[in-house]
């Protein structure tokens, strides 16, 4: 229990120091670009393909459900709301944790094991500012974009199944969606969610790598832990955020 509290405490101090390094990271354009390329762009294909399939499944399931009430015109609305409010932010955060978060934890853990972080510190360069902060910022910027792509592709996937295969009217699909989805309540809240998930998942992953026992076993455990804790944090926070945002 005490050990666990210690980890939480170290994690909090870590976050504060990384946040202190953010202004500097924002000015390291090239490094930031490189890291966005690694954590964001490399997760893109995974996100797009997953989003398309999730949208298609939603189209299929939603149609089967709605057609019983003769409300299949609302398919667009159902698909869009499910994606924009929940599945887009949550699933893309989980995929990001598995694809990029684990890679970040492994990379930082390896840099610690091979004394690269210590070497940097001895060169009077704070590794939290130089190495961690740009990766953190890149993650926080990338996740909302990934979530938006997931939702957008998902809507198109739902349209493909609903309109293209099941014969829902295209005009009704879009107009019901537009009438029912509100930008601020639904889209903006979904984006806020994904920003929070981006902060938390990137933080947990970087911290697990930085806190890893500097052996190969320690790094592999840190990698696993980063995914486990990130996923739990995403689900837990999703509940909290949902009850704060959508309970009117």
């Amino acid at each position, binding site marked *: 229990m005490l050990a666990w509290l210690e980890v939480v405490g170290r994690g909090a101090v870590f976050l504060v120091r990384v946040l202190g390094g953010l202004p500097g990271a924002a000015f390291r354009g090239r490094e930031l670009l490189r890291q966005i390329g690694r954590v964001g762009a490399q997760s893109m294909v995974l996100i797009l393909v997953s989003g398309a399939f999730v949208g298609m499944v939603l189209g299929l399931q939603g149609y089967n459900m709605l057609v019983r009430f003769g409300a299949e015109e609302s398919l667009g609305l159902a698909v869009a709301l499910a994606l924009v409010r929940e599945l887009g932010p949550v699933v893309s955060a989980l995929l990001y944790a598995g694809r990029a978060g684990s890679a970040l934890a492994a990379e930082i853990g390896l840099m610690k094991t*091979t*004394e*690269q972080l210590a070497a940097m*510190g*001895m*060169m*009077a*360069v704070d590794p939290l500012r130089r190495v961690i902060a740009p990766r953190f910022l890149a993650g926080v910027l990338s996740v909302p974009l990934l979530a938006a792509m997931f939702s957008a592709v998902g809507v198109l996937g739902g349209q493909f199944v609903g309109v293209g295969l099941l014969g829902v009217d295209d005009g009704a699909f879009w107009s019901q969606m537009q009438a029912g989805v509100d930008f601020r309540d639904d889209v903006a809240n979904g984006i806020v969610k994904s920003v929070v998930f981006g902060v938390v998942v990137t933080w947990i992953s970087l911290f697990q790598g930085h806190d890893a026992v500097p052996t190969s076993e320690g790094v592999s455990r840190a990698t696993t832990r980063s995914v486990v804790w990130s996923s739990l944090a995403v689900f837990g926070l999703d509940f909290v955020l949902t009850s704060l945002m959508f309970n009117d």
Partner: protein
Amino acid sequence: MAAEPTRAPPPAAPEPLVAVEGLTFHRGPRPVFDSLDMTMAKGEITAVLGPSGAGKTTLLKLIGGELRPDGGRVLVGGKDVHRLSRSGLYTLRKRMGVLFQAGALFTDLDVYENVAFPLREHTRLSEETIRDVVLLKLEAVGLRNARGLWPRELSGGMARRVALARAIALDPEIVLYDEPLAGQDPISAGVLVTLIRQLNDALGLTSIVVTHDVEEISAIADRMHVLSGGKCIATGAPAEIRASGESSVRQFMQGLPDGPVAFHFPGPPVAEDLLGAAAGAPGGNPAAARA
């Protein structure tokens, strides 16, 4: 870079640049250092010798301010390392170069960028000047033509030489070497030892080498400290240490398997274990050699 004249061997009592005074450090309940005293003189190569687990790497981390001691202090150039602010510590660290055990090259940068890293971080030099400095430093370690390689393409010895070039990129006053010879073949170890001596003299450095490779380092060190049991048990020029009659120093210098550092892991004697019915730990506890 080699503009400075080669220094004559330093006088008998040179001024200390690094002084360790009454240093005490615990790792868990186990004391690593118990009121350790030693000095490293300016311009000299000081070797810190000791068996594995004697805390040699810990000593470097304490000198570099990466760890905090439980007692005592470390003075570098008259400043107490552990009473400096973070920025004061970083200013001090710019005057130190550290060569980590396996080099600790940044894996996402190539050789050239690794050496350029401290320059880019701490100076506002133009790209041409950085290029000149990097090539000169790489030339000094004989790897100018390896500048386009990646760390994963280097052998262990080459990686250490690149790391050495990086450690001296900012022209530090002190270079700390953490086990520079561990796991090196004789040729590679010879190259590194020669480099340490040459760079020390050519650049007017003060070098601190922690190692257990007695033979190789004896050839170049001006002064040696032998650590054992958290204390410095012998200090002097290599020849003096070699001639020491003290048993634990002799055991270490001559590589004897048994002596004050026991071959057998502490425990009940073998006769008791084999003959006594209830003696010994369950499952048997094989004697572990403390190499």
